């Protein structure tokens, strides 16, 4: 663990997503204010900050999920591998296929476990049954759920426990081979054991994916992330290596928040 963190610190990091001068409004509410943030490839970036500071809003800007909210307006640029995902003629559906998302509350479809994981492939036009079956297995293994469900793939996903459901949602997200995975408090509704499983999973996924995770738990941020971004009132206050942020934050607000003096 600590080895790989140092490795990240030493090698020049590739930037996967670049946020440039991003502002997000809900009607008159200026929710994200002029945020510039680079997200490193194959690493875990944690977003922390007090409730209502705009973490979810920022996260949802990264895969254009905010487009589905009528009152929401976006300004600025977000580059994915150098290409502006808000550029002219960009299809948000294509963006979302490359930037997947896992929600705070697990939201499996009322379908079988298999169909849940296969959903993204099928809507993407994949017809080949063998390919789908293979990818479902691979994704469930990737989400550390395979052993628990391999004998009941055809039963309803709603019969799974909360933690299993959340891992199913991760598997469902992995199945479409995204490059970036956004997670909005993925473990906040889970017990410590299920949370530990998700965290372990995140650390494994980091080898292949770029992960951005919103969390309210400082410990969780410290455990899983390589870098941490601290948001406050819609602004990005500080961003840096997680070790540095938690030991020697440069801004007073960050220090106050991390030490639990407010938030």
């Amino acid at each position, binding site marked *: 663990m600590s080895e790989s963190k140092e490795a990240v610190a030493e090698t020049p990091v590739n930037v996967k997503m670049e946020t440039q001068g991003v502002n997000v409004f809900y009607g008159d509410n200026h929710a994200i204010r002029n945020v510039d943030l680079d997200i490193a490839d194959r690493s875990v970036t944690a977003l922390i900050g007090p409730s209502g500071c705009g973490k979810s809003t920022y996260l949802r800007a990264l*895969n254009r*999920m905010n487009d*589905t909210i*009528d009152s929401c307006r976006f300004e600025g640029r977000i580059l994915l591998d150098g290409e502006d995902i808000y550029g002219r003629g960009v299809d948000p*559906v*294509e963006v*979302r*296929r490359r930037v*997947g*998302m896992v*929600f705070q*509350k697990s*939201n*499996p*479809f*009322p*379908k079988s476990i298999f169909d849940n994981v296969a*959903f*993204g492939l*099928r*809507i*993407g036009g994949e017809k080949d049954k063998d390919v789908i079956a293979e990818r479902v297995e691979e994704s469930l293994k990737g989400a550390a759920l395979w052993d628990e469900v391999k004998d*009941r793939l055809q*039963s*309803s996903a*709603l*019969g799974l426990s909360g933690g299993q459901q959340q891992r199913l*949602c991760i598997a*469902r*997200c992995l199945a*479409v081979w995204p490059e970036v995975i956004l997670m909005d408090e993925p473990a906040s509704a889970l017990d410590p054991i299920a949370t530990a499983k998700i965290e372990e999973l995140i650390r494994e996924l980091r080898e292949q994916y770029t992960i951005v995770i919103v969390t309210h738990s400082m410990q969780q941020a410290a455990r899983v992330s390589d870098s941490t971004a601290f948001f406050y009132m819609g602004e990005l206050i500080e961003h840096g290596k997680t070790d540095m942020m938690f030991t020697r934050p440069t801004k007073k607000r960050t220090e106050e928040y991390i030490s639990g003096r407010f938030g």
Partner: protein
Amino acid sequence: MTEQVLDAGEHHAPAANSGRRITVRPHRARSGLASSFKTPLWHRVAERTIAVLALAAIAAIALIFIFIAREAVPMFWEVEFAEEVEIRDLFFAKEWNGYDEPVFIWQPVGEPAKFNVVPLFVGSLKVTLLAMLMSVPLGIGCAMFIALYAPRAVREVVKPVIELLAGIPSVVLGFFALMVLASWAQATFGFHFRLNAVVAAIGLALTIVPVIFTIAEDAIQSVPQTLNEAALALGARKYQVALRVVLPAALPGIAAGVVLGFGRAIGETMIVLMASGNAAIMELFDFTTSVRTVTATIAAELGEVAQGDAHWRVLFLLGVMLFAVTFVLNIVGDLAIQRLQKKLTAES
């Protein structure tokens, strides 16, 4: 909260060890016999009342059935009835005098009177099926469009307007079908008979579409937004979300709307009475001929027959059969809905 905590502590560590004053709550008074776990009287009264009301509703339906059946069943033993009508002629084709093949005929004023119920049920089924064929796709399609696609401004106008349609008296719709629709349909499709099954079905559809629409729209609206978001985040297009996530999840509700619409359609009287042409023609597949439905027959003829004579009894038999058909179809529909519902909720 705090009080509870203190209260719990009280058992283990009596007040002595704490500097704070702990208010000791008095034990519940126990009356001689009553256990302290008993449901309060008021709740029991309320529950009983609700149960009684529910039973009363069921009893009312049963009584209606009994009263209708009571007028019909004497046909099986009454001599007067047997003199006029043979029971088997009610259901099977017969070669009447002057016909060269067995036929199904409803001709209560003929000599002899001919009471074959089959053409009436064929008429009812034809009109109902045709009306459902039009209303189901239209109602569900409208509901999907309004719930998922229409801008809010459109939804806020269209929804109440369609729901208002459900409130129009059927005699008005019947009049509209009779005067306007029939002429338009004849001019457009070149029907031989001006009033026919198609015109009646269109008229019926005007009352059923709002029923299906309203219920389906509610069902679609109540599909959790989180499922929409899950699908969108996986790269689904809007139509894929609609067809693969929302529609399946809303299916039990939509099916309930269809079942209700069917009940409405088969029981609807005024529109079919006015717009169907009312000729009891035994014709299974040609929808451009006039038809006479069970309901229209009862409505048109019951007022003009003598109480207790053969015609009277047969009309009540029609009522009993209609009741039974509707009842069975409703139960089948409910079972289907329950199965759909089960598939959606957790269970292996």
